[in-house]
């Protein structure tokens, strides 16, 4: 089923219903404004179920990122490719209170390594809303560079960041899920 990845501080695992409260709290907040929110609890439940279904439909998706110390969900990171997306992307959302600790970068590196080493892809993008400066910083920290713009019928204007190709990564990140 959905693979489990482990990094220094984090576990990336399947989204489950027990993650719903923290997921719903994040989607109800202003912090979700760049990704289609804020959403009420009903809509947030549908969104979390969508994340689970994405795995079944496409064979990859986004993981719940949990603190290894206590399994508390701190975010949602992984590979996201809904209908109409320009290409599969590495996406990251950090739940309320989990910002500023480098979790998005750490989890996204593991997800990118999975895309390259397990799925065998040779490129991947990330989409960032122009006003989402925190997300743009994560993209930059990951070595991705802005290469294009994209207009989405629901999410509006987005910047397309291209990640370094596998060959360009000194450390392919293989130990991230070993």
């Amino acid at each position: 089923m959905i693979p489990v990845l482990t990094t220094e501080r984090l576990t990336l695992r399947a989204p489950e219903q027990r993650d719903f409260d923290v997921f719903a709290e994040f989607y109800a907040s202003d912090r979700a404004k760049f990704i289609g929110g804020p959403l009420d609890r009903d809509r947030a439940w549908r969104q979390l179920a969508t994340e689970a279904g994405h795995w079944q439909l496409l064979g990859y998706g986004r993981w719940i990122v949990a603190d290894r110390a206590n399994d508390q969900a701190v975010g949602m990171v992984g590979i996201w490719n809904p209908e109409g997306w320009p290409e599969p992307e590495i996406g990251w959302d950090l739940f309320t209170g989990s910002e500023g600790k480098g979790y998005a970068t750490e989890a996204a590196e593991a997800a990118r390594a999975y895309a390259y080493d397990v799925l065998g892809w040779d490129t991947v993008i990330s989409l960032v809303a122009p006003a989402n400066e925190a997300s743009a910083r994560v993209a930059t920290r990951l070595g991705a560079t802005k290469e294009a713009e994209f207009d989405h019928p629901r999410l509006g204007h987005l910047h397309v960041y291209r990640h370094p190709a596998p060959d360009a990564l000194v450390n392919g990140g293989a130990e991230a899920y070993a």
Partner: protein
Amino acid sequence: MTALPRMMPAHDIPAPRFETERLILRGPEGRDFDAVCAFMKDAERTKYIGGPAETDFDVWGGFCRAIGHWIWNGYGFLTLEEKATGQAVGRIGMLNHVGWPEPELGWHMFASGEGRGLAYEAALAIRAYTARDLGLDRVISQIHPDNARSRALAERLGAVVERETELLGEPCLIYRHPSALEATI
């Protein structure tokens, strides 16, 4: 690397597969997406179920959500595939979204599936499977009071209005189905 193939199934869901006289009833598959999309964007056909969807993106989210529902609950919408044509003509199954009073038997019939008794045929079989294999008997269906076609199907299935309520801000009738176990004895 755009336009990935719609491969299936990438991960197993516990959907059964069985047949009625004219239909194959099976779990959702990626190839159903175009038919679901046409249905969900049809304003007339979705006006009592919160539609229409405005974008393919929105439909796709709902399509994935229906699969996520299977992963979590062990039941969900089955696709009605017409044997004669191979076409998906509707979706019927047990739904239990957050805020639902209890699991309900729900139906979405596409334009290609209407007027021939296919919904009745499928709903009878699915209601029996639900009672026998899932242990959910005497289930409900939630229907907007103005949705005459859906109410007619519920009543043909022997369901009766138990109470009036609201669902997602809209008026709603809760129909209670008869036992599917006793009906088969």
